[in-house]
């Protein structure tokens, strides 16, 4: 075809070759520039650095101020080290973690214990903390050490704080209506039935964000099938189409009519507010639910562990996610980073931090509990007395499985509880694909 411009006179033509040559020259310059500077790069570690960088995911104002204060306290007693804090929004932090660890991570960086830590430790993206644990090991219980240990038996994580999942309720409401804490599933159903008759939403529920429902699944699963099954199932060693998994969903289906309707369009904060406003009777969630309560009403919040389903397992397991810190693979200031981590493992900064976040508890077992609220004391006791501690579905499994298969599977189930078989088939297929 003939292409020509609107003008009548022929236009000056110019060789494509000239153009190519210029472009190639440009590319060459850029490439050599890159190589040259590549040779010079990465030598910034020389000299004795006094700066430690700290990756923080506590982006809410109050916790952020609290962790900043803890870090400042470290600076004051570290003998001249200074800490640069890099705060990122909590969810953004998680979305970026992969690139972050492979890019230029901060020396000490916030993360979660368990499988979710191992996933990165296994791939050599974080620093070995075994030596440090030789020093700080006495601060922690065995369960916490276990949760900080990678698949190779080395430690890669320093726990900071922890919270528990359970059935939260308002004491005043329960007193007024004369409700008692249910010990078994049947008692729970009876209680929920009664609440419904009293005009309450028995169990507040929200699943718009995709993850809160995982907490319900976890509780039902380890109450029904025990701790080990929880671990194996989420590690891809058990089949999602197993009868035992189906039992879990059957139980959930039985409870679903007592859950708040329209959960898929609601965020957990809104569900928590119905609990706070005494419109719902209880809420299966983490202790952070208390952050939706005004200070004056925090005292009124209480919880009980999810009731027994299978007598073999009783209530021997508690879900208590651990938040803490990892070390960068190549920290720019290794000594300083280890000092900071050692400090963070001590009781002092943990307790100082908890003043701003009174729904969590310290992980250091020597921490003085005198300053705890009754709720915190109960959380601490529950964790201490538990035979097994789980993290959370999305912390105990492959992150890809959690964010895709598990999230969407649970949504499908909630949408249509009669569809369990096809939901489980979908989850099983994806699990096989991921845990090859």
């Amino acid at each position, binding site marked *: 075809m003939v292409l020509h411009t609107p*003008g009548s006179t022929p236009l000056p033509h110019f060789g494509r070759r000239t153009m190519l040559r210029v472009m190639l020259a440009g590319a060459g310059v850029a490439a050599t520039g890159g190589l040259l*500077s590549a040779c010079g790069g990465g030598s910034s570690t020389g000299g004795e650095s006094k700066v430690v960088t700290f990756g923080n995911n506590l982006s*809410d104002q109050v*916790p952020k101020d609290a962790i900043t204060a803890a870090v400042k306290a470290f600076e004051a007693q570290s003998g001249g080290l200074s800490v640069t804090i890099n705060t*990122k929004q909590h969810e953004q932090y998680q979305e970026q973690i992969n690139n*972050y660890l492979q890019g230029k991570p901060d020396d000490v960086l916030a993360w979660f214990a368990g499988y979710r830590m191992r996933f990165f430790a296994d791939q050599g993206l974080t620093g070995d903390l075994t030596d440090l644990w030789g020093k700080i090991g006495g601060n922690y219980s065995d369960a916490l050490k276990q949760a900080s240990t990678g698949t190779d038996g080395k430690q890669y994580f320093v726990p900071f704080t922890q919270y528990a999942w359970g059935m939260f309720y308002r004491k005043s409401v329960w007193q007024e209506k004369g409700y008692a804490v249910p010990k078994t599933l049947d008692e729970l159903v009876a209680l929920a039935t009664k609440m419904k008759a009293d005009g309450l939403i028995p169990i507040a529920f929200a699943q718009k964000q995709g993850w809160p429902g995982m907490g319900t699944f976890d509780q039902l699963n380890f109450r029904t099938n025990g701790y080990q099954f929880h671990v194996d199932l989420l590690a891809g060693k058990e089949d999602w189409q197993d009868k035992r998994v189906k039992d879990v969903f059957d139980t959930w289906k039985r409870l679903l009519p007592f859950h708040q309707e329209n959960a898929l369009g609601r965020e957990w*904060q809104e569900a928590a507010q119905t609990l706070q406003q005494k419109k719902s009777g209880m809420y299966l969630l983490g202790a952070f639910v208390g*952050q939706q309560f*005004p200070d004056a009403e925090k005292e009124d919040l209480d919880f009980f562990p999810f009731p027994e389903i299978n007598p073999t397992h009783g209530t021997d397991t508690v879900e208590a996610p651990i938040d803490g810190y990892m070390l960068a693979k190549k920290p720019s200031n290794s000594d300083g980073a280890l000092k900071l981590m050692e400090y963070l493992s001590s009781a002092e900064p943990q307790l100082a931090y908890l003043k701003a976040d009174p729904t969590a508890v310290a992980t250091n077992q020597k921490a003085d509990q005198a300053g705890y609220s009754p709720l915190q004391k109960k959380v601490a006791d529950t964790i201490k007395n538990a035979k097994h501690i789980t993290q959370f579905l999305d912390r105990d499994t492959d992150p890809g499985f959690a964010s895709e298969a598990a999230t969407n599977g649970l949504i499908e189930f909630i949408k249509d509880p009669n569809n369990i078989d096809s939901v489980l088939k979908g989850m099983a297929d994806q699990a096989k694909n991921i845990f090859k």
Partner: protein
Amino acid sequence: MTATLERPSVPVKKTRPTTPARVALHVFLILTCLMTLAPLLWAVYASLRTYDDTSVNGYFSIAKSLTFENFAKAWEIGDLPHFYWNTFLITVPALLITLVLSSMVAFAVSRFSFKFNIGLLMLFTAGNLLPQQVIVTPLWRLYRLIELPAWMSESESLIDSPLGVILIHIAFQMGFCTFVLSNYMKTIPYELTEAARVDGASVFRQYWQLTLPLCRPVLAALATLEFTWIYNDFLWALVLIQDGDKMPVTSALQNLKGTFFTDNNLIAAGSLLVALPTLVVFFVLQRQFVGGLTLGSTKG
């Protein structure tokens, strides 16, 4: 420059009498405008209320009191001045360079006949149409490979550097600007540059002194549009910036959305503050915007 915007105006008629049709038209337009503004006003209303009020009474209620507290709080907690500055450092260079580069391409392809003109235009336009996600992974790898001296980027690579965000905005947005500008430049009489060339004007002068001034309206229109696009971008910064302090304001707004505690009234106030610069730019440049598109679309 608005002088050049005079368009063949509709012959001025005598002030129309108020006919029922006119009234109906106004009523319809007012209703449509109200419906369009309603969601926004609803957010403004929420932003003026306190958390204590809405958490007890819900949003669908008469406010107990109205206050600007949330705005002050969002300004302070969100550290907005700092993040506005980050955005400024990304948006302005990206915008200017995009306009310069794409006007050069548009000039070259609309004034000279190369065999690859159409191919090039298609390349640019199609590039702009690509979903951003398509290039994220390789781009990130590429950025990590390109090492820079410390004076250009603190992080010594394009990762975690405003420069990297600027570059990808330029590379991406050039497509749309080239498309619009080349369409526009084709409407400029060819005789104009031809005459200049006969007079011995260099190519660069034909571009810089003859063509660009004529494009001012369309450049203003594009600047307005691109400003809102680059300003509102969310994904590039999320992928390419690792340091929370370097985030542009649109991404930093996320910091207001608490992880464990959400105050929607505060978020509403923060979001409105973040939207403010785009609103201002838009209203200031409104005339250019409409004018520019008017000229640009006369002939394709």
